[in-house]
C-alpha cells in the first residue's frame, strides 16, 4: 500500500536541473541533414519519384521536419520534448500554410511543400550560424 511520507522541506527536484544553456552544444549534423533533406524531398515530388518512396518521404518530412527544425532553435534539455513539440509545430505550420494558400487563392501542394521546406532550411541554417558564432565566442574566451 502507498506510504504517506511526512512532509519535509526539500529542494524541489526541478530546481536542481541544469539550465539548458549550460548543456554541451548540440552536434551540427541534424541541422545539416535538415538542410540537405528538404531539396531531396522536393526533387522526389518534382520528378515524380517512386511512389512508395515519395509517399513515405513527403509525409514523414511534413509531419516532423519543419517544426523540429524550428524547435531546435530553442534550448531544451531532453530530446523527447523537442521531438513532440517539433511534430506538433510541424502539423501547425502545415495547417497554417495550407489554409493560407486557400485564403489567398494560391492553392498548390508543391508551393505549400516548398514553403515548408524553406522554413525548415532557414531554421536549420540559423541554428548552424548560431552554433558557429557561439563556438567562435567560446574559443575567444578560452584564448583570453
Amino acid at each position, binding site marked *: 500500500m*502507498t506510504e504517506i511520507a511526512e512532509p519535509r522541506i526539500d529542494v524541489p527536484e526541478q530546481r536542481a536541473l541544469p539550465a539548458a544553456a549550460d548543456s554541451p552544444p548540440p552536434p551540427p549534423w541534424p541541422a545539416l541533414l535538415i538542410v540537405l533533406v528538404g531539396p531531396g524531398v522536393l526533387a522526389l515530388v518534382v520528378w515524380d519519384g517512386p511512389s512508395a518512396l515519395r509517399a513515405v518521404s513527403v509525409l514523414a518530412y511534413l509531419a516532423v521536419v519543419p517544426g523540429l527544425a524550428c524547435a531546435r532553435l530553442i*534550448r531544451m534539455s531532453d530530446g523527447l520534448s523537442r521531438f*513532440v513539440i517539433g*511534430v506538433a509545430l510541424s*502539423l501547425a505550420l502545415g495547417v497554417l500554410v*495550407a489554409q493560407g494558400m486557400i485564403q489567398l487563392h494560391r492553392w498548390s*501542394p508543391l508551393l505549400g511543400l516548398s514553403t515548408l521546406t524553406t522554413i525548415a532550411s532557414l531554421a536549420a541554417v540559423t541554428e548552424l550560424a548560431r552554433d558557429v558564432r557561439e563556438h567562435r565566442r567560446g574559443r575567444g574566451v578560452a584564448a583570453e
Partner: protein
Amino acid sequence: MSGDATLAAVPTAAGQRVRDGLRAVAEWSAPAVALALGVWALRRGDAADIGSLGLVTALRPELYVALALLTASFLHGVFRARPAPDALLAAHVAVLVVLLFGAAPIIEPLPRVISGWLHVGFADYIARTGETLPQLDARFSWPGFFALTAMATRAAGLPDAMPLLAWAPVGFNLLFGAAVFRLARDTSSDARTAWLALWLFFPANWVGQDYFGPQAMNYLFYLVLMMVLLRWFRPDRYGGLHQERPPRSPVALLLRVLRLPPRPLLREPIAQATGPASLVGLVAVVLAVFAASAVSHQLTPIAIVVSVGALVLVRRCTLRRLPVLLAVLLTAYISYGAVPYWAGHLHDMFGSFGNVGGTINHGAVERVRGDEGHQTVVLLRLVLAVAVWGLAAIGAWRRMRRGHGDLGLLALAGAPFLLLGMQSYGGEIFLRVYAFALPFMVVLLAGLLVPVWPARHRVPAAVLAGALSTVLIGAFFVARYGNESFERVRPGDHRAVEWLYDHAPAGTSFVSVTSNVPWRTEGVERYRYRPIGDDLGPTTIGAIEDEMRGNPKGAYLIFTKGQFVFAETFLGKPHGWGEGLERQVVDSGKFRLVYTSTEARIYVLGASRGGDR
C-alpha cells in the same frame, strides 16, 4: 588489490556480465513475445464474430495472455528496486498501443468509423478545387486539418487519404503518449509515477477521438501546449500558499477537515530554467500551435483557453495575459473565418450556455439507449469515467498528504469540466471533457498507486497497479469498441457505395434510411446526400418517394447491412426493422432494383420488373 583478489575478480566480473546479458535478453523478450502473440491472436480474429458488445466477441483468448504478460513485465520493470531502462519501458508502452489501438485495423478489412471516411472526402474536395464548402458542412468552417491533409497527400502522390485511415489511431496515440509522459514527468516527483500514468492513460483513453480527423490532431496540440506551459512557464518560486496560515483561517479549517497537512503544496514543481530567447521561442510555439488549432477545430481551442485561464487563475502560469490573447485570436477567427457557420447556428453555439443539467442529460443520460448490448456499453463507459475521476481524486488527496500537491495539475484536471456549462457539442461534450481531463487524471491516479521510494511495501503496490491495469485493459475493449457492430465499415456496404460512384450521374440524390453509410469519401459536392446531420433518413414509402422525386436529375435508394445494424443497435429500432422497410419498398412496386449483393441493394424510382431480386 592483491594479485589473488584480481584473479578471483575476473571470472566474477565475467559471470556478472553474462548474467546481466541474460537478464537483458529476458527483459526485452517479454514485449517482443507479447507483440508477436498479440498480433497473431488478432490476425486469427474474425470480423464476422463482432456482436452487439462490439469487437470483444471477436477477440481470441491468446490476446489476453499477451496483454497479461506485457502488463506483468512492465509493472515488474517499474516497481523493482532499480527501475528498468527507459527504452525497455517505452517498448512495453509501444506494444500496448499497437495491441489496443491496432486491434480493429488488424481484424477488420476496412478502416472503421465513417466520420474518418468523410474527412477523406473533405480533403479530396480541397485537393481538387483549392476551396472550402462551408455551406455544405459546418466542419468546413474549420478546414485546417482537411487543408493540411489535401496538401500532404497530393504532394506525396497519393490519390486520397484513405491509406492513412486505418492506422491513424496508433500513430496519434504514440504521439499523445510522448506528450503525456512529459506532462507526467514534469508534474511527478519520480519517474515511476510518470511511467505508470502513461501506462494507465492508454486503456483509460477509450473515448475514440483518435481516428483520422481534426479532433485527434487538436488533442495533440492541447497536450503540447499544456506541456510547454507547465514546464517552462510556471513560477520559479511560490509565495503565499507556502506560508503558515492562521489556524482559524477557512483554508486551514478545510485542510484539517480533509486531513491534509498545513502545507500540501510544499514540494510543488517550479519552472525549468531556460534563457529569455528560448522563452520567446516557446511563446511563438504556443501562438503558432494555438492559431492552427483555432482554424482547424471547433471545441479544442475553447478548451485550451479555459485550461490556460485556469492555470493563470491559480497563479501557475506566468504568462498572465495569454488567455486574453488566445481568446482574442479565437474570436477574431470565428468572426472572420466561421461566419457561414455561426450566421445560422447561434442557438447551436450558445443555446446550452449555462445549462449544465441539460448538457449532462444530453451527453450522458440520453445516450443510454439502443439495444441491450449498446446500453451495457454506455453504462460501462459512465462507470469507468466516474471510477477514474474518483480514484484520481483520492490520488490527489494522497499526493497532498505527502506535500506533493500540484495546483497546476489540479487546475488542468478540473478545468475541462467548465465546458459542461458552455456547450453540449451535439451530446458529445461528456466524452470530450473526459478526454481533456484524462492526461492529468492519470497522473493523480498513478500518485495513488506508486509508493514513496525507497518503499517497504512495493509488492502490494505493484499488485494493486496490476489489478487496476487488468480492469482497465479488459474494460477498454468493450468501452472503446462496443459500437463496432455499426462503427466498422462492411466490405459489402463499401462495394455498393463504389457502384454508386461508378454509375450515378453527377447531381443525382443518394438516399438512405439511416446515416450509417460509408459515402462522401469522394465527390462530396457532386451528389445530394440524404440524410445529413440526422441519424434517420426517410423511413416511410411516401417520404422516400418524395425525397427521390424531389431531384429531377434522379435518385438512388441504398439499403445496407450497416444501416440496419445501426438502427437496431444504436437507435433502438426493433429487430428486423430495416429488412421490413425494404420489403415494403419492394412490395410497393414503385422502385426498381439496380444493384444487389449479399449485404446491400440499390433501387431507383420506376416500376419493378419480375426477377429483379
